[in-house]
């Protein structure tokens, strides 16, 4: 394309946007609103994912040592655990530490355990084991139960499985909603741009009748779609950025225990998804729509 034509097409696109007044604003509005919904849902969804991840990571395996095994076996067990590729963290908890924790757990009823002391501690030494992927816990637990020197293994079976199912479900609902919203955004934006092109079908046909090539007609529409899509994508990104920042500040001040993805990191994801979606949809929407009226 000549630089002269490029400027002409760009100029035509801008003129057309201005000329169409409320229709342009409405197109931008539709793009913005659909992408705003999509974006907000992405933010929500990412944070829920982080939250469920957080919960899942608190699940761990407790591996009680067989008191009767010798030092050799204990070292062997430690080596085996350390080299297990699925494990993230292996922490040794002596029975003294375990007693201490249990007392903490009982809170003001800790006096119930006052009868026990360093010599007489019926608890066992144990390892607290965390896997890299929380979902691996049930399998890994079964595996390490057969290691030498292991008394028995506890990972809250019967509770962990439904928990994982639940967090999985949450993720699926989030993904389904996001996919649904993306499809909706695509449909709505394409439809709006199609209607605005439809309004101008007569102009397009006239251009063809006086000898304009398809591309000559198409370029201004492509630029117009690009500009509308870009503006329509920028707006929700800005809105989301500021409102999410405000939300994070408020949450940190009030509900401290919920983990939140920092605005900067989440914005990267949002920008990467929303801006190209808006631009691509604007361009595709308008050029595909124009095509229908070029056949004369």
């Amino acid at each position, binding site marked *: 394309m*000549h630089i*002269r*034509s490029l400027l*002409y097409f760009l100029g035509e696109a801008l003129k*057309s946007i201005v*000329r169409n007044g409320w229709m342009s604003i409405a197109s931008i509005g539709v793009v913005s609103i659909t992408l705003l919904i999509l974006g907000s849902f992405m933010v929500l969804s990412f944070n829920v994912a982080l939250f469920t991840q957080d919960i899942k990571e608190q699940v761990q395996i407790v591996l009680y040592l067989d008191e009767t095994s010798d030092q050799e076996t204990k070292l062997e067990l430690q080596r085996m655990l350390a080299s297990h590729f699925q494990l993230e963290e292996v922490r040794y908890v002596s029975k003294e530490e375990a007693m201490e924790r249990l007392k903490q757990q009982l809170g003001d009823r800790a006096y119930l355990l006052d009868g026990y002391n360093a010599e007489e501690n019926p608890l066992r030494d144990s390892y607290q084991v965390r896997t890299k992927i929380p979902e691996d816990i049930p399998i890994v637990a079964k595996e390490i139960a057969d290691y030498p020197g292991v008394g028995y293994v506890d990972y809250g079976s019967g509770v962990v499985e439904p928990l994982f199912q639940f967090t999985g479900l949450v993720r699926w609902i989030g993904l389904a909603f996001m996919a649904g919203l993306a499809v909706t955004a695509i449909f709505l934006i394409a439809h709006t741009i199609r209607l605005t092109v439809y309004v*101008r079908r*007569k*102009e397009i046909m*006239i*251009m*063809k*009748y*006086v*000898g*304009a*090539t*398809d591309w*000559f007609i198409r370029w201004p529409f492509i630029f117009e779609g690009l500009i509308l899509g870009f503006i329509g994508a920028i707006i929700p990104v800005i809105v989301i950025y500021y409102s999410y920042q405000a939300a994070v500040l408020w949450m940190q001040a009030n509900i401290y225990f919920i983990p939140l993805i920092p605005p900067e990191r989440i914005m990267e994801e949002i920008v990467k998804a929303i801006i190209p979606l808006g631009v691509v949809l604007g361009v595709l929407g308008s050029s595909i729509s124009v095509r229908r009226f070029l056949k*004369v």
Partner: protein
Amino acid sequence: MIEICHLYKQYVHNEFYALKDINLIIDRGEFIFIVGPSGAGKSTLLKLLLRETLPTRGSIKIFGRDLTQLKNREIPFLRRNIGMVFQDFRLLSDRNVFENVAFSLRIIGTSSREIRKRVPLVLELVGLKDKAFKNPNELSGGEQQRVCVARAIVNRPSVLLADEPTGNLDPATSMEIMTLIQDINIRGTTVIVATHDKDAVDHFQKRVVVLENNQLVSDQERGVYFNAH
């Protein structure tokens, strides 16, 4: 230049032919009037020449190319060599008179400087110099028609098709526009005018083709309107 051979045209959903067995040869530089009653097929013939629609049967050649064989992407280049005055004007209602006329030049990549030179000249010719920056729907019927003439001639096409170019014009302005078209013809452009303007037909004494009942019934050198009937 133009060769039409056993041309039939039937629009979809119509039980009758809009054009039946038309044979016509037009040489480079000719000036032809096509006359005939309303619905005789005059506009259809011009639409076929512009490849706005395809014939049902028969062949239609222009610039040595058979229009029925023309590829889609070749159509714009055909149309750039044909200036057309449409019966229903077909002005771009989203831009002003100047831009409507300039459009014919823009699509062939004429520079802005050239456009700023040529468009006012043509608008002056059709008597619309002071309406250049009006929107078409702010013009009277006759003014719109003249814009359409201006657009058709501004890029100096080798063929000019005019469908009722003076239907909305008073006799004096009609004669001016017809004389303008004749001037263009004298400079070498082949001209085909479909018209009901008896005075013009009688006055210019050019070749007259008469369509009646969608058939070609007469083709006379130096014809007049009434003779035709």
